């Protein structure tokens, strides 16, 4: 078999095997959306059967059927927690869930939500202590209170002030603003790789020039998957053509 064919086949075989391996290695079928907030310290402490802590508004990228957050209390009698997802504008309850008493305070806790929260409304995540002991909710504490009270002003204030968050997140306990942001991760039901790509491309079209939309990403994916291998296969062809031509010229 000529060298050029061997090189081209080797390229295509490597490509196919590699891409199949990449596709098979994908096993993270649950979409996760976090609030971009680190777990640094206690943001607020909730008292038994006291006011609830609410953080919002949160714009979900995908429907969510669970939320994971970071409560901490004195073990072993850690209290049960009630989790409510509300419409941030009307306060209507969209979904409910909870964390059972006796949870491990060293680990993030997940509350399954019923029903699944849709993406139709901006939401707030509300947590209430329904046990017998105090519980702290963790995230990035402190800072930003003045900005949060300002309701506008600079760009930073427009976006939940300059803390490590990507949402316009304000945290309040019993309606009173708290300085800080809570850390939370929303999980979605398992999705197919096609849905994952569609969502990814939709998210990757935000904060982009106007010509970058989902269609652009699909087109680019096709060009990369088909165009680049074609270019390299032709490059190999040209390589050996050129070698032959150079030999011919020397003759």
């Amino acid at each position: 078999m000529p060298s050029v064919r061997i090189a081209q086949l080797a390229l295509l075989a490597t490509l196919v095997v590699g891409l199949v391996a990449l596709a098979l290695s994908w096993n993270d079928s649950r979409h996760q959306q976090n609030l971009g907030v680190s777990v640094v310290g206690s943001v607020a402490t909730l008292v038994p059967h006291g006011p609830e802590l609410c953080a919002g508004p949160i714009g979900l990228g995908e429907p969510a059927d669970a939320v994971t957050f970071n409560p901490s209390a004195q073990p072993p009698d850690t209290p049960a927690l009630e989790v409510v997802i509300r419409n941030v504008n009307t306060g209507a309850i969209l979904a409910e869930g909870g964390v059972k008493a006796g949870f491990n305070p060293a680990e993030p806790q997940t509350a399954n939500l019923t029903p699944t929260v849709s993406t139709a409304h901006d939401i707030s995540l509300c947590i209430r202590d329904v046990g017998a002991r105090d519980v702290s909710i963790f995230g990035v504490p402190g800072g930003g209170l003045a900005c949060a009270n300002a309701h506008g002003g600079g760009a930073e204030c427009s976006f939940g002030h300059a803390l490590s968050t990507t949402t316009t997140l304000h945290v309040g306990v019993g309606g009173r603003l708290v300085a800080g942001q809570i850390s939370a991760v929303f999980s979605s039901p398992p999705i197919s790789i096609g849905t994952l790509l569609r969502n990814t491309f939709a998210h990757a079209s935000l904060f982009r020039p106007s010509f970058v939309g989902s269609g652009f990403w699909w087109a680019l994916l096709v060009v990369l998957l088909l165009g680049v291998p074609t270019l390299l296969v032709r490059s190999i062809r040209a390589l050996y053509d050129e070698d032959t031509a150079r030999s011919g010229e020397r003759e």
Partner: protein
Amino acid sequence: MSLWEALVDRTTRMRELVRRAQPRAARERTRGRTARRGRPGTRVPRPLALLLVAVALFGVAWALLDPPFQSPDEDVHFSYVQTLAERQALPGSGPNALSDAENGLATATGAGPEELGAAPMQMSTTVDRHYLAQLTHESQSDGGGNNNASGYPPAYYLLDTLGYELAGPQASIIDHFYAASLFSIVFLLLTTIGVWLLAGELTGRRRELQLVAAACVGLWPMVTFISASVNPDALLYASWTWVLWMGVVILRRGLTARRGAAFAGLIALAMLTKASTLALLPAAIFVLAVGMWRLRRRAIQRALIAGGLTLAVFAIPVATWDVAAHLAAHHAGYGQTTVITGPIRSFNIREFLSYVWEYYLPRLPGQQPHYLDLPVISSYPAYEVWVASGWAAFGWVDVWFPHGIYPLFLAITILVGVASAAKLARVTLHNRRSPQLLAQGVPIAIFFALAFIVLLGGLHLSEYNMGGPFNQGRYLFPLAGLAGCAVALALTVLPRRLLPAGVGVVLGGLVVFQFACLGLEAGFYYA
């Protein structure tokens, strides 16, 4: 015959045999194609042209996929470009470190300074909607103050201003930012061309090795990632690669006034891009000294003219910038050098050597532990920094593959290193009596070694002086051209009949690696 040409010679003989075995009609066809395309040397070789299109496509993907300011120090680098474009002034005198518009975009996308080290952001339609609603109210010209990049030399930023301006005078900061990122791909293409030329000079234009070397750099995801973001390293990689090429040209073919001027111009460009180019000067001085030494008997006047011109082409722009920086922005032109020279920490040679030892070798009994780096993949610094973060550490060095992948990267690195070293040793031994080895092979080896050792030494000195984590694998990328050539050289250990398959596997592997890294990036920010 140089040690490299020994390789070429054998292949040329092989090609000749293949050519003679080819039917006459086929030879006529290829000759006809060559005549239509023009003579070699007057056109871009077709394999390179096709590779450049592939590199550009991946460059576009990286430029647009990466969220705003999510590559190292991209916020301050973009601020520099924005300051030049919007204020027509060097940064340093403006009212804010970053403009309102930049602060707004950074905050909205979770890339503000407070977000560093936080969990990855998720793009939110809510935030996008709120952001776009008030986008027009934010000024793009009220930045220009001091920040981490404001003391950098201006070459990259000035050139990237062209990209920024292409977005149009009324463009939003999003358009300006991505126009600047996309324009930076030009430097990625220049880097790729530089590696092609360098490999051509070293291998006697052995095309398959040129293609492999150039592809290894142009399609290397970390190189694409940095080069397709707003970062002066894009031009630094290109200019260093071209300097390496021109240095080899001078060492192989001799110093002339034109070559000297080109060499010096490229070094000056690199200096005006980033002060770390100081590490290239000993190697450059070596090339110039060898070139002039060889001319001394034949034409002392020519030697002096070539040397003088080289110095002038280098010194005039480099000194001009230093003066301009003092006058216009009231800072040193190459202020980054304070990382090494500044009195951050008193230098203790014993302590420094101990630190370097621990970087590469296991700690000895009784040896003081040094704070070397933040272990993500491994607590063994040489592996963590030079290998792991050189292969894949995106974002602000916070986007990594699962840890289990990196031993594979290490194994490939060792394999390539051993194979290329073995080949080099074999060819050197085979040609040990050849006068070409002393005349060309040894000077080229010294040139490369000086560039590598001084750069590596400077990086270690910087890190030691700072007393904390500083180095990243990408800091060695100015020498990426050598790495590309090493891969090409490693391929030649394969039996002759397997070489084409090796070329195909490397190219295919690079494309798969690109997809894996783009997928990693997309999953981290958007999935």
